[in-house]
């Protein structure tokens, strides 16, 4: 029995570091919501909009963690009766900021990958803006599509 107990302790020591490094959490917080848009009138939401911008939150195991952020972005929003409306994302339509008081926001292009090192907080928020371009005869109704943010720890 003494021998068995010793083996259990060894297994626990090996397992803990692996579990800590895999503790990566990514959560969608708020939709990118353009609200009411008018036929024929393009609408822009900056990533700094406190209400309309999309928001994600991610948490890493600790300071010094390196992450790569990549978005899967739609090119259109889908609406009633099969209608679709173009959506696009430009440079600086993404904004990341750690949760520590000293953290400053960083703008980046959501169409590509961005790499960060967590230096003052293990977690951060990421906001997303964009633009839609309804046609003059765009069908009235609600349009939507999914935005995915993937965070990779390496």
């Amino acid at each position, binding site marked *: 029995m003494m021998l068995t107990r010793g083996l259990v302790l060894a297994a626990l020591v090996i397992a803990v570091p692996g579990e800590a490094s895999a503790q990566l959490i990514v*959560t969608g917080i708020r939709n990118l919501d353009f*609200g*009411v848009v008018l036929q024929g009138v393009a609408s822009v939401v900056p990533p700094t909009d406190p209400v309309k911008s999309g928001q994600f939150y991610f948490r890493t195991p600790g300071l010094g963690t390196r992450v790569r952020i990549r978005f899967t972005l739609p090119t259109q929003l889908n609406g009633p009766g099969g209608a679709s409306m173009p959506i696009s994302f430009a440079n600086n339509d993404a904004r990341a900021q750690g949760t520590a008081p000293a953290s400053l926001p960083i703008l980046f292009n959501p169409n590509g990958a961005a790499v960060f090192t967590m230096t003052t907080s293990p977690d951060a928020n990421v906001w*997303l803006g964009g633009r839609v371009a309804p046609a003059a005869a765009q069908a009235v109704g609600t*349009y939507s599509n999914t*935005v995915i943010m993937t965070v*990779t*720890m390496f």
Partner: protein
Amino acid sequence: MRVHLGLSAGLVASLGLATTVIAQTSGNINAIARVRQPINVAAGQDLDFGIVIQGTPATIASTAAAAGRFDATGTPNANVNINFTLPSNLIDGAANNLPIGTWSGCFNQTAAVNSSGCTAIASMAGTTPTTFGNVAGTGRLWVFVGATVSPAAAQVVGTYNGTVTMTLTYF
């Protein structure tokens, strides 16, 4: 250049270093937009008190034939807020004021009629939520306004005018 500010932008890919993925996960949100037709508001009828007598207030109710009227079109059945900018005086060509107040209003979603079926606006100073009606596939809204003018006993004789502004906003 590495910037240590909560997050820092790295250039690992450009250094050509091999990277080992420790963990990866994703989160989702939706991108949403609600398309609406543009709102058009036209002046349907002025609020015309006609002849008023010095010292004698004159009132036109929002349900009266002489009430002012706005004619609006938009997306059928869409939610819309009604707001007004109302003058407190009518003014003649010589900058004399004729007080106006005690505003009243009502709206009709089916016809340009205020003698019946016109829904009263509780507060002309606030925001009134309502919807466009659906009249043969067109979003329609008729809004009527009334008020009271109070000429002084020595009110300068003349013609007094003011502007009533109605704003409709989808929500």
